[in-house]
């Protein structure tokens, strides 16, 4: 199908009108990903079409050639974070940068959804990457990478929360940070909408909803990230939805009454 001679064309993404991403170039072969076809091509052969994201959405292909990375992990359909993480562990700065750019918005949104101030979320994001960098050896190839990131992010957030509680106890400034849905000066942003939407929920339910519905993780991945069972995650989601239904219905009723009075 495709040969090494096509590498330059592949680089430019000009083969067959498909948008392509080169995953690995070996001594005599090339592996790449076709975005439109959601397909992995290996040594010029179509390995398999990637299923829509179900379960942990992970596909594993082993290769014996020593010139190649031995295993490619491809997370479909929108990213190959596991493979980037493996290369980050091997000291590849390009992979590290790609991860920072790819994962940071999700983590930042996760923090913003839990906190009132965007500057706090910035600090937490930096702190999270500091921890990620220190403990990057604990990620193991073949495991889904998002739960690993989120587990560390949760740890950082809890640390921050406790630190904030101590600071507040000293400074007696209790009202500023304690309410997740506190108003933020300046222009309203999408993350603020999310925060407002999830504001009635307790923290444990809010983070589960954020991971499941906003970050697009599976139940299994959320369970891994929160160090709980899938059953516990389902229970939290169920309770969160019940609470959201009640709150939104109450808000709708109030708006209706105001409209009637006007």
């Amino acid at each position, binding site marked *: 199908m495709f040969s090494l001679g096509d590498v330059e064309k592949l680089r430019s993404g000009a083969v067959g009108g498909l948008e392509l991403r080169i995953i690995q170039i070996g001594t005599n072969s090339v592996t790449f990903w076709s975005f439109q076809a959601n397909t992995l091509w290996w040594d010029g052969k179509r390995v398999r079409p990637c299923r829509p994201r179900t379960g942990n959405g992970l596909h594993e292909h082993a290769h014996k050639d020593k010139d190649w990375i031995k295993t490619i992990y491809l997370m479909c359909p929108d990213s190959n974070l596991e493979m980037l993480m493996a290369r980050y562990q091997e000291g590849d700065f390009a992979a*590290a940068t790609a991860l*920072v750019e790819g994962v940071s918005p*999700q983590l930042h949104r996760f923090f913003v959804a839990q906190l009132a101030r965007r500057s706090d979320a910035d600090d937490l994001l*930096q702190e999270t*990457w500091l*921890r990620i960098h220190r*403990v990057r050896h604990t990620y193991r190839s073949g495991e889904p990478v998002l739960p690993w*990131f989120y587990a560390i992010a949760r*740890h950082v957030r809890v640390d921050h929360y406790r630190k904030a509680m101590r600071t507040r106890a000293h400074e007696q400034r209790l009202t500023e940070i304690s309410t997740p849905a506190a108003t933020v000066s300046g222009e309203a942003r999408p993350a603020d909408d999310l925060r407002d939407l999830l504001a009635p929920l307790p923290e444990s339910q809010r983070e589960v909803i954020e991971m499941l519905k906003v970050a697009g993780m599976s139940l299994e991945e959320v369970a891994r990230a929160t160090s709980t069972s899938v059953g516990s995650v389902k229970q939290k989601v169920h309770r969160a939805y019940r609470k959201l239904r009640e709150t*939104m219905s109450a808000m709708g009723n109030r708006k209706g009454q105001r409209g009637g009075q006007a």
Partner: protein
Amino acid sequence: MTDREIDEALKRVSQTPHAVEPELLGRIAGSIKASLQPVRRLPPTWTLACGLALTCTAVAVAGAVRAGFYGIEKMSLVQRALIFPVIGILSWVAATEFVNTMIPGSRRRLSPGALLGIGSVVLVGVFGLLFREYRTDHFFSVGMVCLLTGLLHAIPAGLLSWFVLRRGFAVNPTSAGLVAGTLAGLAGVGLLELHCPNFQAFHVLVWHTAVEPVSGAAGALLGWVLHWGRGPIAEASARRTPIS
């Protein structure tokens, strides 16, 4: 308001792009670059769990070598065939869970509390089934000696377990301490079964079994103190190592 409407509201929010300041991303990438080197990955879970189980077995056997194998010598074949495999299985489960607590994003099959509870109940069940001598002599004085002996051997088992998993990262240090304490406590129980020749049912049920929950609680407390309790030290340390 229906679930579908909530789903749609969340979907709308999730589809909105969320940008992070490029300068911030640049700073993060720059700080990573400064110390980016290949790292040695952790071994597979089963390798680490084997290491932990062997460590705990070694501590229990070494303690029994020093104190004497009076307990196992006095046991019947059925008692030996049931007690030690049960302690072995519980130790393996605890070791696996300890490895999982030290690797972020790992699949958790048991919560630390459930592990401690199930371990204690199983030990009580097995001991209650096998020891039928309901007389009690010197219940507290002899029992306290056994409890302290078990806990004294749980300490090296816990320290060595921590050494085996020193490259791990506990996202919840209290849970990790609880699981480590449970594992170390099982090493202490193993030692008592090898050594203690007192087969009075209440002695074994209360004082031998107690080593596991007491050790687990001590581990949880230690994890909490080392992490959450050191507030000012942790804050000072964090201030010393900012991301540039």
